[in-house]
């Protein structure tokens, strides 16, 4: 089985560290990069073309939904997973429309990550 490469985009270094540790513990996945805001996330996505991007919603410079739209526009076919505390319907609709295919609640819980990522294998 080929290892899936993951990019983590979140403005909080703490959340990135926790996500990275959790993901690294799961067989078949490797974190290949991190970014601290939406704009940086977009740039790094273009460079690394990861299989999966786990992205935050509320970030400086460019939020998660804007970033997802830009990634789709750039023709990058990464799976986009939104990791956020916000769960109102309107936001979920916007997110789906922007190209996000899966959701993780925040704070991240290991079982959720395992099941969400496994569904992408």
């Amino acid at each position, binding site marked *: 089985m080929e290892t899936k490469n993951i990019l983590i985009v979140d403005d*909080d270094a*703490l959340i990135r560290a926790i996500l990275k540790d959790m993901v690294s513990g799961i067989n078949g996945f490797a974190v290949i990069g991190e970014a601290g805001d939406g704009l940086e996330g977009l740039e790094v996505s273009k460079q690394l073309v990861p299989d999966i991007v786990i992205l935050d919603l509320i970030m400086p410079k460019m939020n998660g939904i804007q970033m997802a739209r830009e990634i789709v526009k750039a023709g990058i076919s990464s799976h986009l997973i939104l990791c956020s*505390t916000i769960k109102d319907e309107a936001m979920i609709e916007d997110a789906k429309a922007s190209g996000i295919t899966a959701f993780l609640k925040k*704070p*991240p819980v290991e079982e959720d990550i395992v099941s969400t990522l496994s569904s992408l294998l």
Partner: protein
Amino acid sequence: MDTTKYKSLFLKETNGHLTSIESTLLALEANPLDKASIDALFRHYHSIKGMSASMGYPSLKDFSHVQEDLLQKLRSSGEQVSEDVISALLSALDIMQEIVRLIEIDEPYDIDTTALKNRITELADAPAQKEDAPKETTNADQSTPLTPTADKITFNPDTPSGEDTKKNQPSQVQQHLKLSNIMKVESHVFDDLLRITGDLLMSLSSIKNIATSTRSIELKEGIHNLGKSVEELNENILSARMLPFKNLTVSLPRIVRDISKSNGKEVGFRVDGEDISLDRSILEGMSDPLVHMIRNSVDHGIEAPNTRVTVGKPAKGTITVRAFENKDRAIIEVFDDGKGIDVKKLKEKAIANGMDSDEVRGMSNQEALQLICKAGLSTKITVTEVSGRGVGMDIVKSSVEEIGGKLEIESVQGKYTKMIMELPKTASIIKVLLLGIEDEVVCMPISKITRILKINNETLKETGVFFNQNDVPFLTLKDAFGLESTTDEDESTVILFEEKPGNSVLSNEALLSAMVVDRLIDEVNAYIRPLTAPFSKLDYATGFTILGDGRPVFLLDLVKVAKDAR
């Protein structure tokens, strides 16, 4: 999830957000429609909420959540942010800082935030700006302590900014363990290190003495090399103890805001030169005096807005803190464009307080201004009508002197007041010369010495000290100390030195003076410690050091010697 390994990251990130929240709130207060500030604040609260949820700190999570909600409302309404909102969020910030501090030291953070949470929720639910909203009495905490923000000194030999430099580059999967190259160390460790190197330097000088009588070149060489290493160690420790002045100034805008709000003044505040670095102990020692000076400037310097307009000044006053370096000293000025100090009134008070009236009348304005630092004079003159608790400038002055500094005051009535602190930049280990006067031993900094002369006692009596075709004023320390002469030497040892004969901070007029001592003993490196009560009032002493054999030796107050020689 075991969160302990994430704790330091949590603290670092959260403290960063809290610092930004404070400055952003103050910026928003100045510009209540600034959308960028509102957006930034929203993200800060959102981040704190997310991180505390991840770490399992539910009360901090809930508390930041209500603040985030309030910001979310403000974002969507596009309204002007009211003063009530700013005040409530600043009070909440204080509590969050306290919670984070308690988390850091592993104490329970059981703080009741209910009332403030309700208040914030109310503000979020309130329709547009209520004019008559009950003013919250977040009465400025008049005793806000100002301590260097870092209780710990971050020692980072590689990256000066201490920034997480990995952040911008995608990291490869880590296949080896890596320790951070930034270490957090309790600040007292650095105090111990400094004390130990001080002792080391003293022991070294004792050994050097003993070694003068040896013929062993190897031993001499060994001691020489040891000496070089100890000095290098000392320099490294001194620089590791340095922190930027910014560590103190970061809390000042908030303090100025709170004090000026509480007594109806309008004050613009600015800091220049906050990048200069000083020893942590010096920063700690100057923090209270600095806050007192700024408080005095707001309380007694800056006039009420309408008074200012009447005398042709802008309604809003200005307080500027300016820091700069002058050789091995740091100068910190607190300037306000307020009403200045009434010298005439000050002189009258001094005379009423029992000072010699001729002496007081003969004083220049500049001299008379320093009277404000005399006990009993300052409080009466500077006591505020509003708070009724002016801070005695005598206490400010002695605090500054305790850390080896000097304080000077400049003022023009109706125009401005400038308080000037001159402070050492580093904790002081200096080269001193030990001097014997009868059985007493004192020391002086070698750097001050111009020349050492031997003068025949008869000549000294008849013509005094004559150097480079000039008469040099001199003081015989034996007489100044009130000691009986027991020596029958024909010659005296005379030390010529340059020093300002008076406590003027900025005048650079160091003049040549001389002092007569009995004998020169030795040259040593000494860790100079400040004098504490009851010795702080000792004449002719500004500090002390402990010799290798445990004897205390006082550091001569050359300013006083130079003054008394005249």
